[in-house]
């Protein structure tokens, strides 16, 4: 068992179905599709043997759910964009990793469970990512949910548990985070040709985040997570969690080669395909100013503390 897991690369990709189902309807969507295709090729050229997905479109309530069905088969249809078509799928999941990840979560104080049910509706974001990045199921995959109530400490520990399991099994891993940047969509149906980022403010923030990604400053993005949530995230959940999980899973530093392969509007939301490759030399800027949690003890209750 190696101490540090071997992470081949990390990808940040959008959850919307347009690049999969309708790339021809908009030039931006087709550029996102090309970026997905480039990433697929790079994964094929790597010697990765596991694709681990964290999807913001798979919410959970009871702790953290980990997909462990060895061969999930279903036809998925998106709640909003059902008119773009169906997404039939058959994937190959790494059961051993899923179980090991669950154990690692529990060892770090998290409530977690694997799910392996016929007909389980894998979420749009995961289906899009798996179909575009791993179309022939060349490498086995695993998906972890996004708990609606979890906050920073829990997400960081969830990422560390993912690393524990990778190290234990000696996996070479592609990390995939499925999330928008700004996530405000247009609330009306639009002509695909007219798609654009919902507002100039969303666009500016997206570009600033992309600058950080481009410089490989993942830990800094993680530290900026609460600002990002406040500025450009619709308050569907309590926090912008994907950066926390991604940074924790990839090792909590800024030492990556970053590449933004595409940045386009997806019905108004900011969709980007970004690749981070762990770098050997150089050390980026670090701003470790928040707690680095190793074991999850639950959320801190302010009322219980500081009593005289």
């Amino acid at each position, binding site marked *: 068992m190696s101490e540090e897991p071997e992470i081949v690369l990390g990808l940040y990709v959008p959850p919307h179905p347009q690049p999969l189902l309708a790339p021809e309807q908009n030039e931006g969507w087709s550029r996102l599709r090309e970026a997905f295709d480039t990433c697929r090729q790079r994964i094929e050229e790597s010697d990765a043997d596991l694709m681990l997905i964290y999807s913001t479109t798979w919410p959970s309530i009871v702790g953290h759910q980990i997909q462990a069905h060895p061969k999930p088969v279903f036809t998925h249809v998106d709640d909003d964009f*059902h008119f773009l078509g169906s997404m039939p799928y058959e994937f190959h999941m790494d059961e051993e990793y899923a179980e090991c990840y669950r154990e690692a979560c529990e060892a770090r104080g998290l409530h977690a469970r694997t799910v392996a049910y016929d007909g389980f509706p894998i979420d749009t974001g995961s289906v899009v990512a798996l179909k575009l990045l791993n179309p022939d199921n060349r490498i086995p995959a695993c998906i972890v949910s996004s708990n609606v109530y979890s906050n920073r400490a829990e997400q960081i520990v969830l990422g560390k548990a993912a690393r524990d399991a990778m190290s234990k099994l000696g996996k070479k891993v592609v990390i995939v985070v499925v999330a928008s940047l700004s996530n405000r969509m247009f*609330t*009306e149906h639009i002509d695909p040709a007219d798609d654009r980022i919902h507002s100039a403010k969303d666009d500016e923030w997206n570009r600033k985040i992309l600058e950080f990604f481009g410089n490989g400053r993942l830990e800094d993005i993680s530290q900026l997570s609460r600002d990002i949530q406040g500025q450009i995230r619709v308050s569907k959940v309590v926090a912008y969690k994907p950066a926390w999980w991604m940074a924790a899973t990839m090792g909590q530093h800024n030492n990556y080669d970053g590449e933004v392969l595409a940045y386009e509007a997806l019905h108004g939301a900011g969709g980007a395909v970004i690749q981070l490759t762990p770098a050997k030399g150089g050390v980026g800027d670090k701003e470790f100013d928040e707690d680095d949690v190793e074991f999850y003890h639950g959320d801190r209750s302010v009322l219980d503390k500081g009593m005289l």
Partner: protein
Amino acid sequence: MVKGEVVLGCLAPHPPHVVYAENPEQNEPFSEGGWEALRWGYHSLARKLKDIDYDCIVVLTPHWQTYVGTHFLGLERFQNISVDPIFPNLFRFNHDITVDVEMAEAMHDAAAEAGIITKMMRNPDFRVDYGTIVSCHMLNPDWDKPIVTISSNRSTHYYSNEVMNEQATALGDAVMKAIEASGKKVVLVASHSLSHRHFVTEAPLPEDMSREHIYNHSQYVWDMKLIDMMRRGEMQEVIDVLPEMIEQTMAEAEGGGLTWMMAAMGMPDYPAEIYGYQSVIGTGNAIAAWDPNESTRQLVL
């Protein structure tokens, strides 16, 4: 043609736990029961429905979440398995659902005419959400009436609880016009809990009732406040206070169901029939019905 009407409005919470606890043949997992206060309440309301003459059930569900407008199921039949992505251990339900497409289209058109963004859902592979299935199964386990499902527009998240109230009211008004023009007798269903903070862990045996209780007392107090107002027929007041309740209790009414249904029923000022209240994984769930017919309206609980 005779003017169509709403013959009953039901607040029908949809924790999959209640279907799980019933062990219907359509659901794969097996349970030892649980949540009787809710299930027996549902049985009582289902018996009442058996005595009512109606053509279809129209349900607004927060588990079909749409950000781009309000969507309506638009195909005659949906036959599939619906596995709850959040509680897959409890709910894997084989369903065979008949849709009143004519009614759905009429509601869609009336809403569009009122300026609401709308969409018909015509993809045959679409998985009907568990909110629709749980509420409809508990109200009508024979599944012998067609349904219409309306999606929940996420205006609370995109704007505010107040905007949700405005938009759901407009949708309710439009739906009422469509019902009146259709000549049909319709049962409306707002499929959701009241307070909605969940426990994030689950007992090894989910139906172990020694573990079930409300998430916190504040949620309980809010739930009781609302139920009291319902008993008194103060539905305009309930809708007015809803934004604050949603803020304080994460109430699932944020999806617009109750506001939509009350608007479509002309904001009842008569007492609601209360059929039960119980927590499920910490959330507060009330079963209530509004019967516009004074001669059949009862004091149930």
